[in-house]
């Protein structure tokens, strides 16, 4: 067994302890809950436009990242620069 996977296995103990603590804390205290207004209010949207204008600007070769850096497509409550 190589060093990497040994370290990974050793890290599993502390990681599961921290994960369980974090999950149960949230279950009791519900600090992550709020009104999900994005899906719980009546929203009527026109079809989204702008797909035609998408242009390829560059390429990424041989990256090990599984997603674009700073992927925030599902994190819609984090504000980005307002223009």
């Amino acid at each position, binding site marked *: 067994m190589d060093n990497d996977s040994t370290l990974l296995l050793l890290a599993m103990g502390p990681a599961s302890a921290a994960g369980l603590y974090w999950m149960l804390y949230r279950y009791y205290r519900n600090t*992550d809950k709020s009104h999900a207004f994005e899906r719980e209010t009546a929203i009527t949207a026109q079809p989204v436009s702008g797909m035609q204008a998408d242009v390829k600007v560059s390429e990424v070769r041989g990256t090990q990242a599984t997603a674009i850096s700073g992927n925030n497509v599902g994190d819609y409550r984090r504000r980005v620069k307002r223009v």
Partner: protein
Amino acid sequence: MTTKPPLPTGPGSPQDVPPAPGQFPIDPATLPGPIRDELQAPDPVAIDTASKELKDGLNHCPKCGSTEIRQRAGTDQLVCLFCRHQWTAARVEEEFGLGEGIGELKGTQVASGAKDISADAASLRTFKCSGCGAEVVVNTENAMTARCHWCRHVLGVNEQIDNGAVPDAVLPFHIQKDDAVARIRQFVGKRQMFALKAFKQEFAPENVLGVYLPYMVVDANASADVAGYGEVETRRYTRGEGKDQKTYYDADVYQVRRHVDFTVDDLTMESNAARGNLDTQANTNNVINAILPFDTKNAVKWNASYLMGYSSEKRDRDVEQLRPRLEDQLLSIARAQVQSAVRGYDRGVRWEQEHLDVHGTRWVAMYLPVWLYSYQQGGKGGMLHYIAVNGRTGKTMGSVPVQQWKLITAALTVGTIVEGLALWFIGR
């Protein structure tokens, strides 16, 4: 292109998108039995009241003129305790045409009850009793009715005054006290194992209070533009042999722009500054926020008689003070709407810029019914923990203080077992 988006700004914490109901980051099936049982115990059920017929009335009984008027428990009707007359009136939705024309909204329309609060407006108001002429004081901070101590007439604050205490509409309580108590019991019942000992000992859900909390209910007509970069995977391959094997990706980078026009009906926001502060480090107001939404379509015209027996909280925020919060929520809605229109970018999208045009808004002030149970945790870092029940739908959410040493011991025990298994596996 490699620049990271700036840190989040603007009001409206918690910034986390709330998880879908019943979702856990760890699969409960993998956890020890007692913990799993707690997690999987049923939640208090929320009922749908949207179809209920609604009624309302005046402060004097229209038949006999008595002021002994109460809300008929569990309904939106008012009943005269003197002659048993029950009567009907209008829902604000139809009366003011609130559900209509949101797509054509232009500018800022503010209903009379949502107007700006005068700087010198006092909470204590003196009313002349029309029955005997005595002067009766009503503290509008927490009550909207008072009984004349001379002639026993009930006086209600019915005309709109400039201190923000009188809203446009009120949504009467449907969930009754017994029901709310049962829901709170059920909610706490499935959070016992790691709950603070003092909390469990002092737990008395009969002390729950019915409170009318002030909200602004906003209709908005807006457009939003977002811009950023998206990546599409073109190739996936592995290099190296055996343990050094690694996966690499090739991707095309696209510049992405999206535009969406949308209307929002009855977006509900806290209009009390203290209640609208959702900082989970300092308070547990987020659980009261989490019991939204209400069936605000069924709200009836303001009548102080609905508040008999309940306490109330005064609005202290004006439309302009709530506008940043509204814009923040509209941008969140726009970003959620465009999410389905960028599905093709399978490596995700990094939004870098966003723009919002608010074409029109309509603001209505409402009192919404909430059952509140509270527990003040003592000691360092102690805060007021709420358990809140939606007075219409029964949706229940709360914050149960934890016994830290118990929770840490449980986490360490599970961690030690996992670590033991890992060591055994390595040593094989």
